């Protein structure tokens, strides 16, 4: 009983169709749960709900039995699919990391971040390099759970493998629970402790 979605329903506007209806799931610390689904299954919405970016219309999101705090540093951090949108284009990377806490030298090696990158702007980095910063930022905030919404979908296979090696290693070290959303069955098989296949339950 750690991070839990309980009978959650959500729609954008009260006369629209439900994006998610009566969904429940739970995730333990130290576990990697993969939600496997193609686009159009409301998985991004689910990610936003679990990380507190959206409030469910019905049902609740619980962290250790209590509602997710809506202000302050959120213990559930979301990592997005497009790292270039998740970074302020006017900020150098050093500032990006500092937004989430003081930079510790040894962390740079853990996250595979080269010192020279800290003085660059996002547009001067490749997708995989930017995504490393997004992961570092999420973990440095002291997150207990991370939601990874298609974080390697836009990357080449080498960067993808590097990113997941990094996420799994650092999450294990910190006893963090991972909820990964992907459409790639093979990737799911590689990283998951447990898989929920959404495409299966709608036929």
């Amino acid at each position, binding site marked *: 009983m750690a991070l839990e979605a309980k009978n959650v329903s959500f729609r954008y506007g009260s006369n629209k169709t439900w994006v998610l209806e009566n969904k429940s799931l739970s995730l333990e610390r130290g576990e990697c749960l993969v939600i496997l689904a*193609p*686009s*159009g299954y409301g998985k991004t919405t689910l990610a936003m709900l679990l990380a507190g970016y959206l409030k469910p219309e019905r049902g609740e999101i619980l962290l250790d039995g209590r509602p997710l705090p809506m202000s302050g540093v959120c213990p559930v951090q979301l990592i997005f699919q497009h790292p270039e949108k998740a970074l302020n284009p006017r900020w150098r990377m050093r500032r990006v990391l500092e937004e989430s806490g003081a930079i510790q030298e040894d962390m740079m090696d853990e996250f595979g971040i080269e010192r020279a990158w800290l003085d*660059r702007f996002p547009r*001067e*980095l*490749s*997708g*995989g*390099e930017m995504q490393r910063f997004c992961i570092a930022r999420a973990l440095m905030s002291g997150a207990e759970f991370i939601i990874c919404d298609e974080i390697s*979908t*836009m*990357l*080449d*296979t*080498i*960067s*993808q*493998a*590097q990113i*997941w*090696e990094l996420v799994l290693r650092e999450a294990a070290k910190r006893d963090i629970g991972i909820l990964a959303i992907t*459409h*790639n069955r*093979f*990737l799911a*098989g*590689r990283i998951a402790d447990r898989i929920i296949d959404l*495409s299966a339950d709608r036929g």
Partner: protein
Amino acid sequence: MEQNKNTILEIHDLSISFRMYDSRFEQTELKVISDLYLSVSPGEIVAVAGASGSGKSLLASAVLGLLPANASLSGHIHYKGQELTPELQKNLRGGGIALVPQSVEFLDPLMKVRSQTGGRDKAKTAERTRVFKRLGLPDDTENLYPFELSGGMARRVLVSTAMLSSAELIIADEPTPGMSLEQSLQALTMFRELAREGRAIILITHDIDLAFEFADRVAVFYAGTTVETAPASDFKQGPRALRHPYSKALWEALPQNSFRPIPGSQPYPGDLPKGCLFAPRCPMRTAECMEHVPPVRQIRGGEVRCFYGS
């Protein structure tokens, strides 16, 4: 280089630089594409695969003449044997070459889908209904405005525009993300049909497994250059059939293979290595690789830019 005289598009030694401010008032040239080559013939699907920043998307802009004003270009692009001039590009943008853009924002937000896919003309409508059906788009899609489309639907509408055009060369820039596997396969099957009609297709993608499932040939880009072009079947066979160490590494890193990445990352255009662009990460590198740019060599029906590729 491809010896086929019937190519639709042939690119040799293409380099593109951007003038960028490096300090407050000094500008330097940033070389983002170096000595790139690529060719595509009628009836052929060539997939261009590579990491972000490898120059994939820039390729489409270069061919269509849509580079920003601070870009400078050298090398040759031939369209049906003719040197591609800005005038020719302007004509081709209207019909000869169709682009399936990466972003959904390329649809006109104020026009219904119908008007953007041929209008009310009878023949066009029949054609559109057929194409939409094949792409799995609901019948009433033509009455929707772009903002009413989901991400996957919008992408399929973009694909349909190219299918409905009479272009001889179609450049698809990442047409599949946001589509389910079945939808991607369906869209790619449509591309295959277009190829059968004799059109040439360049499929820009980072999804290397989709690339070698569907293309005839795969061109692997790295740091703005072509490191290898190979028949797609070589990629299906695995690393022993491949020629360049980077292609092998891409294959190895797939989750269905070993999922083990090589270390390091693609160099930034501001500090490219002197010799082979892949040398700093290459397990096979020698002193020569660090000093000289390797030439393109023909090996077993493919081309590779490596001293040692075999």
